[in-house]
């Protein structure tokens, strides 16, 4: 037996490999555990994971051109978009046939809005053409090239055709390219026109402002948490309620309160004017810009910094600082060399919470951000609910998600995620 155990896998009493035997014994327990989480798991899958996956999929999906204009797409394959000339008659014939079907199903307007993201004017072009194509007869009215150009001379523009050809594939990187201020053209990937480049700026601004908010939260929250952790429990509980108070107030109310405080005819400006620090004609602009967003969001996210800091600081025994002092360290050295390093896990947890919350924050920048203080999330919301360019919205969202994951990964590499403590 001892030979067998040395040379082969360890066997259980009935001769089955021990590993298999163990797995069998644990299977029932695992199943039970799975059953217990099943309702939540299914709920999350159906209502959260699946919609997100679907949404992210939209950032690359591009079936619409091929579905609406199947014959045209085939016919366009022979056409060289770099030739500078309009495609030949067969393409126009195919387009007429496709459009006839599409108009019947009313899908040509959808195609119009999709292609309009890539080139303005295509939407109205397709609408206009759709109305006419409906009256044509595919047999008798050929050839169509002249007729299309008659309807709108844009059909004689090779660029229109180029756009249709470039976006005729089932999947496209076009949304992602747009999301980083690039565009897909027949001649390859190019930067967008200067007046249309907004997303890189928005991403940079979102990250920069989130970092600013995070650091403001550390600066304001650390002393509070320190005080809370070192007071008598009775007093600190009272103060903790004050910290939590904002949680119990509606986000909208708090944000609106900042509007009242910060606007040009607002409380702060009034006081500054009254004590003569600011000239009446020269009131400070503190809202509808980045300053307003940073102030309001720091206030809103501050509890998320204070709470993890507080719970970590509570676990740091007072004896460490005392030991440091007894060893000859001044108050500052004892704090900086002994107390602070032990509170770093709390800072880490607070930073992750505040940063990730703020990078995707929507409502506050929307209300107090004006044009200069909005985040990428506001743009995503715009594409989802106003411009209905879901593909671009999804691409922006995917990039944001990736950015957060990368930052999280970087944090893990640099600080170590084990160093994050919520209490």
């Amino acid at each position: 037996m001892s030979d067998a155990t040395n040379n082969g896998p360890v066997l259980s009493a009935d001769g089955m490999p021990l590993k298999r035997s163990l797995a069998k014994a644990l299977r029932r327990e695992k199943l039970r555990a799975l059953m217990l989480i099943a309702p939540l798991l299914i709920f999350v899958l159906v209502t959260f994971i699946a919609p997100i996956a679907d949404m992210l999929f939209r950032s690359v999906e591009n079936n619409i051109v091929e579905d609406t204009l199947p014959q045209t797409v085939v016919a366009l394959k022979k056409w060289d978009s770099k030739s500078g000339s309009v495609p030949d008659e067969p393409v126009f014939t195919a387009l007429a046939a496709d459009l006839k079907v599409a108009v019947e199903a009313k899908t040509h307007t959808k195609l119009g809005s999709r292609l309009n993201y890539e080139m303005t004017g295509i939407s109205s072009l397709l609408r206009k053409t759709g109305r006419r194509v409906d009256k044509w007869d595919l047999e008798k009215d050929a050839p169509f090239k002249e007729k299309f150009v008659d309807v709108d001379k844009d059909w004689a523009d090779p660029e229109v055709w180029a756009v249709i050809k470039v976006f005729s594939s089932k999947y496209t990187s076009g949304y992602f390219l747009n999301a980083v201020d690039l565009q897909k053209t027949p001649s390859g990937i190019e930067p967008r026109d200067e007046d249309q480049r907004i997303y890189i700026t928005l991403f940079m601004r979102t990250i920069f402002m989130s970092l600013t908010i995070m650091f403001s939260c550390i600066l304001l929250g650390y002393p509070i948490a320190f005080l809370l952790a070192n007071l008598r429990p009775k007093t600190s509980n009272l103060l903790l309620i004050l910290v939590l108070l904002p949680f119990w107030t509606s986000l909208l109310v708090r944000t609106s309160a900042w509007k009242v405080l910060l606007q040009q005819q607002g409380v702060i400006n009034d006081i500054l004017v009254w004590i003569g620090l600011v000239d009446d004609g020269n009131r400070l602009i503190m809202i509808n810009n980045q300053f307003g967003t940073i102030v309001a969001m720091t206030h809103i996210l501050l509890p998320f910094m204070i709470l993890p800091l507080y719970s970590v600081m509570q676990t740091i025994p007072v004896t460490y600082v005392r030991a440091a002092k007894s060893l000859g360290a001044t108050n500052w050295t004892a704090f900086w060399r002994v107390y602070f390093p032990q509170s770093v896990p709390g800072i880490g947890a607070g930073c992750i919470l505040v940063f990730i919350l703020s990078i995707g924050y929507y409502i506050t920048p929307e209300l107090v951000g004006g044009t200069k203080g909005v985040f990428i999330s506001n743009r995503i919301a715009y594409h989802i609910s106003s411009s209905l360019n879901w593909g671009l919205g999804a691409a922006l969202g995917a990039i944001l998600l990736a950015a957060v994951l990368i930052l999280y990964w970087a944090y893990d590499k640099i600080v170590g995620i084990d160093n994050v403590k919520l209490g």
Partner: protein
Amino acid sequence: MKDANNEQGFVVFDHVQKSYDGEVLVVKDLNLSIGRGEFLTMLGPSGSGKTTCLMMLAGFETATHGDILLGGKPINNIPPHKRGIGMVFQNYALFPHMTIAENLSFPLEVRKMGKSERDQKVQRALDMVQMGSFGSRRPGQLSGGQQQRVALARALVFEPELVLMDEPLGALDKQLREHMQFEIKRISDDLGITVVYVTHDQTEALTMSDRVAVFDDGRIQQLAPPDQLYEAPENSFVAQFIGENNTMEGVVKEIKNGVALVQLDGGDLIDAKPINVSKAGDRTRVSIRPERVEYNRDRLHKDAHTLKAEVLEFIYMGDIFRTRLRVGKNEDFIVKTRNAPDQVRLKPGQQIEIGWLPEDCRALDA
């Protein structure tokens, strides 16, 4: 007690009082003089004020009234980090984010000592506690006993003249604790440092100290070398607190030739040495150590008063026998006898007579 009899002690508490809430005094009028090189233990139950005294000495609490002097100078207004007092904490308080060597090097760094000198001193201190090869470990990787050694080394590495220890062995198991008691004693003797040691463990106090100050209710109940404390407790609290003890209550009948005749509440008469009683009629609590009780009639003085007792339990403990007796209504009267070849082993149910030398039985305050 080395030179505790200096007219001015190295550490002096002069009428020190401490209150946290302005209503209750935690330390009541403490006067204590500790000699240079002395090992003094503050012993007492929790809440007796001993730790508060230590914290006042270390500078983490301020005295409400009175002066604390160190080397003749009042230190009430000197912040802890300028007092130069080494301290070992109850849970060691080793900085978890630093290695052992960094922990030891910390007090030297804040004293702006050069690197090579630092390394040398750190190594010497670690060698002294036999932890020389552990410098690069972190506190979390050490066992309790090893952490304890490091904490000791850290408190000593900057060569303070006075080291305070706040129940440093409280978290260790019995065997390790006993070992560390000797270790601490040896090191403190070798270095000639003054140690103020706080504990609630009387064995620790008795084995290590030059003098022990027994605290209760914010006062020093007795300040004496261990043997005196054990053999000559000055009041019933100390008698109860130090070692095992049998107590009986009664009234003094008469005091003659330095021997008090005490009538116990059960009616029996016994002889005792008057300590806190002055005249006939005083209520008293007499105390007798279990190992001083004699049940061999031949070894007692022929006039000695004896008590009837019934053996309830006989426990064999190896080196000693421990016998529980019923004496009057007291069912917890303990007698300890050495395990010797000629020693009688009592049996439960046996009726015996017990007595003692009058000087072993002390008539204390009631």
